[in-house]
């Protein structure tokens, strides 16, 4: 019986340790761009279609900066793809911006994960326009009027981002 109790204690400790090792990084809201119009992206995606935030007006947009070598990014992206399917393209859109050095690596990752939303390569100008993309993932939520409503650093819990999306779509 004592052995079983010890085992349960060790198991609980390990589960706790595992949760610290794998649960998402914190999210933080940086007020600087919140409430301001989202800087235009205007660039070709990997399918050579132009991404334009102006064209996405009327929809809530999830804008995600990521890299193919970033573990948390690769965990989030299939979830974002699922959210795009779930909310439908009339109300919601996801746009990915890779900070990879080369498009080939980013494209390979997108194909491997079977991502359906538009993804383009980022650059310094875009990074600076968005307040400095000096770590990934960074995700913005933009309302239907093109105004930034939230900024998240690190991997986001699905329920957190989904609650915010629902709030913006209802608004």
């Amino acid at each position, binding site marked *: 019986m004592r052995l079983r109790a010890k085992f349960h204690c*060790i198991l609980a400790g390990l589960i706790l*340790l595992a949760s610290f090792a*794998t649960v998402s990084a914190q999210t933080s809201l940086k007020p600087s761009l919140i409430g301001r119009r989202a800087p235009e992206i205007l660039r070709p995606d990997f399918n050579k279609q132009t991404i334009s935030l102006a064209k996405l007006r009327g929809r809530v947009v999830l804008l995600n900066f990521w890299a193919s070598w*970033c573990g948390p990014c690769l965990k989030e992206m299939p979830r974002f793809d699922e959210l795009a399917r779930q909310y439908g393209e009339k109300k919601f859109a996801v746009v990915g911006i890779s900070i*990879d050095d080369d498009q080939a690596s980013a494209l390979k990752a997108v194909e491997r994960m079977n991502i359906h939303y538009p993804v383009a390569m980022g650059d310094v100008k875009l990074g600076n326009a968005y307040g400095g993309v000096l*770590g*990934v993932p960074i995700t913005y939520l933009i309302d239907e009027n093109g105004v930034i409503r939230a900024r998240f650093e690190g991997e986001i819990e699905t329920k957190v981002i989904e609650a915010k999306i629902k709030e913006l779509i209802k608004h």
Partner: protein
Amino acid sequence: MRKLFVLLALLIAPLLYAQSGTAFNIPKANLIQPAELNKIITTKVATQPLILQIGSRMMFEQAHIPGSEYIGAGSQGSGIEALKARVASSKKNQAIVLYCGCCPWGRCPNVAPAFNALQSLGFTNVKVLYLEQDFGTNWIGNGYAVAR
């Protein structure tokens, strides 16, 4: 009892595997804190360390540590090759500081492979900049020297 050990081993193994090759494996003696590195680069010392960014070019071009050089992502073969080429003519006791800051420390895929590559080449004075959250938070956020 034996079953208990087997079960524990099965539970622990994935955790250890997940952390192998990560920043957590870099010995503490090989870490340098942001404040310490900032002090070094802002002090007129004759011999400055070779500071190499082994993350993303887009991040580097937005902001980087003055005097540092962009190499390439340490998690990618091309980045490691570029790193090896950059230090090929350096003495093995050359002071080298590696940094990335793309992600929280434990999740950075770039620093450990770059550190391991230099260790395997026999470099004896390699430090890795400890950026707990990311470069934006722990370097720029603290007001340390930045070049753009």
